[in-house]
């Protein structure tokens, strides 16, 4: 487990939609060891200021050539707002790659289910799937502007299905409908990988369990360290015996391990 805390040069900061940004930094060491589903902790703020105090966790969206890694993020509060104001040429400290990513299960269809910005942890996974002809990607969102990076996925699979609540892109409806349609067509064993809002992942997990399909989920929790030091990122275990720690044992878990409430 190699992790690096790097003062990284910002290479690109692009607004893709109203509040969605793609940030690319130069961090060769992190790039080299990044696995799908892992994340980094980013110092959003200048060193001369301690507010906000904590770094922000972001999934590794892309690894480019020449040591570049990209993050796909949404401006939701003051940390991401400050982050979005950082400009190319500025230095930003990035700690990663962190956590346990997805375990790649080959030899069966891979179904990736992303809700909104949940796609941020799925692209690297989609790229690493060994049998691209058995890669199915399902993406759901409120509207088209929430998922501005669809082409990144369409390049990787013919089986890309999109659904939006307002019908502005793909089908109209919610992602569980897509998953239902997909699962009805699947006859052999499969593996579901999902990332998105808690309630969506919960629904995905229940559908998977009904069909006995293993399901890996990528969880979020408020984090202070991202490295297992503080024990702050707890999520209840399914057996009600204590807690999982998202940054260290996760962020990816077998959905069975999690107490979904």
């Amino acid at each position, binding site marked *: 487990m190699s992790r690096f805390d790097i003062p990284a040069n910002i290479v690109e900061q692009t607004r893709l939609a109203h509040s969605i940004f793609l940030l690319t930094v130069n961090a060769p060491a992190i790039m080299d060891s990044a696995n799908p589903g892992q994340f980094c902790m980013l*110092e959003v703020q200048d060193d001369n200021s301690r507010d906000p105090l904590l770094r922000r966790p972001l999934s590794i969206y892309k690894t480019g050539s020449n040591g570049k890694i990209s993050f796909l993020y949404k401006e939701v509060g003051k940390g991401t707002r400050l982050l979005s104001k950082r400009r190319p040429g500025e230095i930003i400290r990035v700690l990663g790659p962190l956590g346990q990513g997805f375990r790649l299960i080959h030899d069966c269809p891979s179904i990736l289910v992303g809700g909104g910005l949940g796609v941020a942890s799925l692209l690297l996974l989609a790229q690493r799937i060994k049998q691209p002809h058995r890669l199915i990607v399902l993406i759901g969102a409120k509207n088209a502007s929430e998922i501005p990076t669809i082409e990144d996925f369409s390049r990787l699979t013919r089986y890309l299905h999109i659904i939006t609540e307002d019908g502005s892109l793909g089908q109209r409806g919610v992602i569980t409908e897509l998953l239902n349609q997909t699962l009805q067509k699947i006859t052999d064993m499969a593996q579901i990988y999902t990332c998105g809002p808690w309630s969506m992942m919960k629904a995905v997990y229940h559908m998977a369990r009904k069909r006995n399909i293993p399901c890996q989920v990528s969880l979020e929790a408020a984090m202070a360290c991202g490295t297992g030091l503080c024990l*702050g990122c707890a999520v209840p275990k399914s057996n009600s015996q204590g807690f999982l720690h998202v940054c260290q044992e996760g962020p990816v878990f077998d959905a069975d391990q999690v107490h979904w409430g």
Partner: protein
Amino acid sequence: MINQKKTIPVCPDLSINIGTLRLKNPVLLASGTCGYGMELDGLLDLDKLGGIIIKGLSIRPRSGNPPPRLAETPCGLLNSIGLENIGIEVFIRDKLPCLRNIQTSLIVNILGNSVEEYFEMAKRLDREEGIEAIEVNISCPNVKAGGIAFGTDPEAAASVTHAVKKATGLPVIIKLTPNVTDITEVARKVASAGADAISLINTLLGMAIDIKFRRPALANVFGGLSGPAIKPIALRMVWQVVRAVDIPVIGIGGIITPDDALEFLMAGARAVQIGTATLIRPSTAEDLPAGIRDYMRANNIKNVENLRLPA
């Protein structure tokens, strides 16, 4: 300004004593913010530090509080981990063997719900090799006294100190809670009860509210406030306690830079602990000894104790 004096540069000595414990420099990692040490592998060179204080251990494992356990506040962090830990036996079996290899002083932090628990744990640790001191967290609820923290009741704090001292020959550091009217009163009692050193401050009791979801930000409602926000309060308490007792004081609270550490050493702290800063940047503590040394050299100060300001 002192740093304009032109004298032969001294070679500052950073080593310090805390009771019979000798540390190579005055920078330690604070309990609860450095896990069991191994979590920092590759991110921080422990050997460069004066010491590391392990996550607070209880007699049996504790699973801690339900989430959310963290909330960020202006220049601060609220936590309600609820003292989650693997328990003293698992620690001794699984973690201690590796920790014996690090080239820095190992201090174990303990917590209990009764004087007896503190006694038992100190006795248990006394038998183990590789542990150089015990830090006693007395911010825990005293179950027999209706749940008031030991640390807010000077008599209860003294009882714990007594018990731990009786149980072990290791240096005993009592870690005080700042949530009291008069910190010097508790400090004096604890010193008279035989403590070898005092460390302070533990976190301040605080809370935050999530106005979007209309509920307290922490599931536990209250949590402990740490980070730069609390530094002025910590510094004031260190200043007061240093001038109230004769045993060494270890300063904690919001330290990030060498300048922050120097403030505490000037207030009279013998050493400092780095907590929240390690969470934010794991290597923080590593740079402090050199930063302190640079200042001492520039100002012609020979050893750490000479940093202390008069009055």
